[in-house]
């Protein structure tokens, strides 16, 4: 059958010469390449102990921010959950009671705020949608775990540590 392109290359099979037949020079050459790499800087790192520096716009685990007085910024407006293409975020709002003014910035706050880290695709749209500058994806890589339920991160893992602790 004629090929479509009409291009063909005829391969010649030459018989091996003496050096090639001996195999030893080729083996020495291969070993030399291997030995050379012993003295080079390794290209890999040993990950959990050693960490590569992230780029400036790396998006890792979410954190819910506090303002300069240590109050939670999130007001449970739901825009992050609305913008989330993976539908990873859920929240329940609650009304701030008198006496809790030092905990929450607005009269409404998120009583429950959960992100399913298995669903999250780290696109950063929640960060972009937030009108209160409350959520940032500035954390580390989300740690591994064994159970699905442990990947649903609540406020205990997401909210930043209070200021004076």
């Amino acid at each position, binding site marked *: 059958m004629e090929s479509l392109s009409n291009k063909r290359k005829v391969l010649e099979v030459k018989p091996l010469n003496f050096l090639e037949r001996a195999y030893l020079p080729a083996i020495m050459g291969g070993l030399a390449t291997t030995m050379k790499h012993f003295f080079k800087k390794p290209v890999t790192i040993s990950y959990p102990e050693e960490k590569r520096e992230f780029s400036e716009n790396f998006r890792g685990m979410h954190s819910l921010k506090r303002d300069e007085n240590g109050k939670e910024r999130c*007001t*449970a*407006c*739901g*825009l992050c*959950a*609305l913008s989330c293409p993976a*539908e990873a975020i859920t929240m329940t*709002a*609650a*009304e701030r009671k008198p006496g809790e003014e030092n905990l929450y910035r*607005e*009269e*409404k706050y998120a009583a429950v705020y959960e992100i399913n880290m298995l669903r999250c695709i780290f696109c950063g749209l929640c960060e972009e949608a937030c*009108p*209160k500058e409350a959520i940032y994806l500035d954390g580390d890589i989300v740690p591994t775990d*064994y*159970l699905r339920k442990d990947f649903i991160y609540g406020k205990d893992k997401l909210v930043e540590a209070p200021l004076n602790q």
Partner: protein
Amino acid sequence: MKVTIDGIPVEVEPGTTILNAARQIGGDIVPPAMCYYSKLEGSGGKCRTCLVKVSKGSEKDPRPMPKLVASCRTTVMDGMEVQNITSPEVVEARKGVVEMLLLNHPLDCPVCDQAGECHLQDLGFEHGAAKTRYEFDRRTFEKIDIGDKIQLHMTRCILCYRCVFTADQITNTRLHGILNRGDHSEISTYITKAVDNDFSGNIIDVCPVGALTDKTFRFKNRVWFTKPVDAHRDCDKCCGKVTLWYKGEDVIRVTGRKDVYGEVEEFICNTCRFDKKKTADWVIEGPRKISHKSVISSNHYEFTPLPVVKTNPVLMEANKEQFERDTRL
């Protein structure tokens, strides 16, 4: 009578306002209205968002009107020519009106329960500028409870008077109104006296902003996470035709059915609105059609929602067993 609005001719009855003539045509050319409410007599003329340019007064007197007119209060003349969105003057004026309405309006949309179905939000988005030139403090008021079911946030009020007209017409007794004048005007009841009437809940529906909100829905959920479903019931006080707002299996809010202009089709009573919050109380008609432009329709899909999955004890037992087997490792 024949009028032309933005180049589209329409035949209307004598005595129709320009706004209603435009609504007969429908579409983009309908001027927005914050205070006019077709179901409330005497409403309109307060907010000035519906300003239009009359470029030809009538067939007999073809001179244009000297100033922009409020279309909700101006009746049509035969042969009148009106410009709404085709006139740059109107667009510019409307932008100014929106800025004016937003002078004292707090930007607490993330907290406000009306966000997502707020007319001022839509108006600001469509016509307003992103920044304000106002440099002074906004007026602030304390929250007032009007009865145990309605909350008044006077800071958010734009003084459209719709709730006052509702109290006048729908309810038998007038229990609240506007106190003081000018910048100090405020909607109030007589020393936080409860508005106590079977139809008082309608002032929540007529409010174009989040000034009057349902206390039973306060901070329960955002409007766009809930699913509107049309339903009716036999009610001896009202028509019983409502929209139920579902979150999962629960009815978290009941409102009247709102049309494309955000006006309720029929007023509903307080029993339907506040007390009947079980699916068993209602006959479900089907999902409510929401404009695809509205945030309420986001993440909602165009089909009859599947029934909520009932808890299956066998499945739960099996899941539990599986879970225990997994956690043992």
